[in-house]
């Protein structure tokens, strides 16, 4: 039905669910979401694979569902990765301009980027992204493209996201085991931010927090570039686990209590209220103090935001966030979470909405799918880049061809 090259699939193997989103990139560059498949994830802990065969099965279910819905055959995917082992930092590359007239050429720019990307990392680490930030020409900051400018020294900052090679390989192998190709691996937090933020928000400075099942990822944009990224291996699972421990109920029950009665804030109205939980036969078995339930949740969520806040403070990224923070992921469904985040982070916080993509309403409105949709968007950027690159080489080929024709 569709031209296979225009189909882009984002696959997110999360702690609570595996989700595949199918996007169709039309010729004029518009992205349309046409399919969605998801399955409960059973083999992932804290964003990392713990049971590979189980994960493979879950991925298969999600992919098959997405294929049926979009009516396409999926051959390759953009795979989202996360986990506590991922780290982000900024690195700077320097390159002196050697030409006599001090004009910065395309080669200089390529060289400086190459310098910035040479990072001294232990052998078992793999660089997932090296995202270009701004150029500096003789110390002048904020230059997006220095080609043609005059200067003695070009510098460029890149934001590098890296992780353990073996753990990343685990996820890739699970996908390859299903005879699917992996086009690229993408940090989940980056994908979510791509799905949620508009260019204006990136320019103003925004923080995206994706509260997933096992991990919480966050990305800071400032002046249109990625300033800081981070992963906390704490998520919704921890909330359920705390509840199970604190209220002395089984984990599945804790999960249900979280969904039905959870809230990120403890208000005075719940003081002294209890919930009666009953067994399968409808017999009451236990009364649970609602205040305790909320308190346990609130403390855990508050801590997550505090840890993020501390990290941003350390990275000196807090002052750039003029557009505020945006929440997504399953955790953003918790009532009042935006209010709690506002209290901790001291900035406007809202729930993120997937922007600038058309398609399935059911997929676009869910905060859980932000990462998977972002993966599709990432894929579309790559595809466009590839398309433009091939057109340039084609152009060069034809000019050279013409030259030969002329001389001949």
């Amino acid at each position: 039905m569709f031209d296979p090259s225009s189909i882009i699939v984002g696959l997110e193997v999360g702690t609570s669910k595996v989700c595949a989103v199918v996007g169709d990139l039309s010729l004029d560059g518009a992205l349309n979401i046409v399919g969605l498949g998801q399955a409960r994830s059973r083999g992932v802990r804290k964003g990392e694979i713990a049971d590979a065969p189980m994960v493979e099965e879950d991925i298969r279910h999600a992919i098959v569902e997405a294929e049926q819905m979009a009516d396409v055959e999926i051959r390759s995917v953009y795979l989202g990765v996360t986990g506590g082992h991922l780290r982000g930092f900024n690195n700077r590359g320097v390159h002196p301009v050697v030409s006599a007239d001090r004009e910065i050429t395309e080669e200089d720019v390529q060289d400086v980027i190459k310098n910035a990307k040479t990072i001294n990392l232990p052998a078992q680490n793999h660089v997932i992204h090296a995202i270009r930030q701004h150029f500096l020409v003789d110390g002048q900051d904020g230059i997006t493209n220095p080609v043609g400018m005059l200067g003695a020294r070009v510098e460029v900052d890149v934001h590098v996201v890296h992780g353990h090679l073996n753990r990343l390989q685990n996820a890739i192998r699970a996908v390859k085991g299903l005879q699917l190709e992996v086009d690229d691996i993408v940090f989940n937090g980056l994908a979510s931010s791509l799905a949620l933020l508009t260019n204006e928000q990136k320019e103003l400075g925004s923080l995206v927090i994706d509260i997933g099942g096992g991990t919480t990822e966050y990305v800071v944009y400032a002046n249109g570039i990625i300033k800081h990224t981070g992963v906390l291996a704490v998520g919704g699972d921890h909330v359920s686990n705390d509840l199970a421990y604190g209220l002395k109920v089984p984990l599945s029950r804790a999960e249900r209590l979280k969904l039905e009665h959870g809230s990120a804030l403890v208000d005075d109205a719940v003081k002294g209220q209890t919930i009666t939980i009953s067994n399968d036969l409808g017999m009451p078995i236990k009364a649970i103090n609602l205040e305790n339930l909320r308190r346990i949740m609130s403390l855990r969520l508050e801590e997550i935001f505090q840890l993020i806040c501390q990290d941003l403070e350390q990275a000196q990224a807090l002052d750039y966030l003029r557009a505020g923070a945006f929440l997504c992921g399953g955790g953003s469904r918790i009532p009042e979470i935006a209010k709690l985040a506002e209290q901790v982070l001291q900035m406007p916080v809202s729930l993120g909405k997937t922007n600038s993509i058309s398609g399935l309403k059911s997929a676009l409105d869910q905060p859980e799918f932000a990462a998977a949709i972002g993966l599709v968007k990432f894929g579309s950027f790559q595809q466009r880049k590839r398309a433009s690159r091939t057109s340039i080489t084609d152009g060069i080929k034809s000019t050279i061809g013409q030259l030969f024709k002329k001389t001949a």
Partner: protein
Amino acid sequence: MTTHSQTEPIAEIPKKTISIKVFGVGSAGVSLMEPLARTGLAGATFVAVNTSAESLAASSAGDKVAFETKPLLGLGTGADPDQGRALAEEHLDQLKSLCQGAEAVFIITGLGGGAGTGISPVLARVAKEAGALVLGFVVMPFECEGARRQRFAELGLDELRETADGVVCLPNQKILKLIDETTTARDAFKLANELLGDSVRALWRLLTHAGLIEIHFSDVCALIRDRHAESAFAVAEAIGPARSREVTEKLLAHPLLDGGPVLDEAEAVLVSLAGGPDLTMVEVNRVMEQINKRCERARVIMGAAIDDSLTDRLIVTVIATRKDTQAEERAARLAAGDRLGSHLLGLATPHPGSRFVPPPPTLNPEQVERLAAGQGKSRGRKNLSKMRQGQLPLEIVSKGRFDKSEPTIHKGEDLDVPTYIRRGISLN
């Protein structure tokens, strides 16, 4: 500026004779003192104080004092400062006789454990009463050693500051900046030893060597007294004709000074130059000019000393201290809330009359709640100080579904354990 007629008489000034006693307290203190004791400092005698005889046996200090611990059969204090303190109080007379006759007492210790944290404040008090000036040189634990150790260390530091004339404090965490991926743990600790040793040696040099420009001991004390957060030291050394320039460059690029910003923020800076008889005033001036430029806000105390063995060399030691608002808050809390709390709970302080302030023995639940709500940083577990055996938690927290997964450790805390338990918030 430096003619022979000027330098010669100065070089001939006899060395000042101050009798210094250097105490290494606790296992960390003893091992920190070891390199100093081995090389020796003129005019100083070394005393090793510890609760386990084993570490004393290896020490080359002149005097060795072992406090025998009955509860743990001579195996130390079990990282419990209360026990260390109790032992020191028991052996008060012995400590007193050791301090007799010393004009300056240096206490070298590692805080966070039982012996160092418990004994050194008592020792400082005794030394003070014996009429000596007391300087503490302490090492704070690495953050990865856990929140509990860190807190004990902070409390111990506050106590020591109360009693001693001055405390120079080196957080081990700073060492991490100096090491790379391949540095072994042993080398890292060695580095900490060296840094502390350098600062002890620098102060010793200041006190005992004839100076071109003298620093009085009281100046040093005034600098590091008050409630200063942490001191940053840096020592740089250079040889040869370009030594003054080289030494400043090395100093300003020193990782422990974070390459400069520490100096910008410093409240007070002590600079000690040591050189051979050939040290010129121009060189002193050049170094000081650079340093003064970096720390305009700070109160700078400088001294220059001459050591015959340092011909052709120049050693510059910088100790920069910064005010710590957190420590002040903590102290205020310590003085007001927590002491009050302990009285309410019927626990009398051991020495109500003295300046010696015990750490808060117990936080009552309402205080715990207040601290947690106000700061979000309190990590106290309930009933913490009732446990005599610190390492054995009374309540074993199961991590539920994360039991078998890799723990998520953040600054020494296991985030898989429910937050309310780590913060000690009780559910009704």
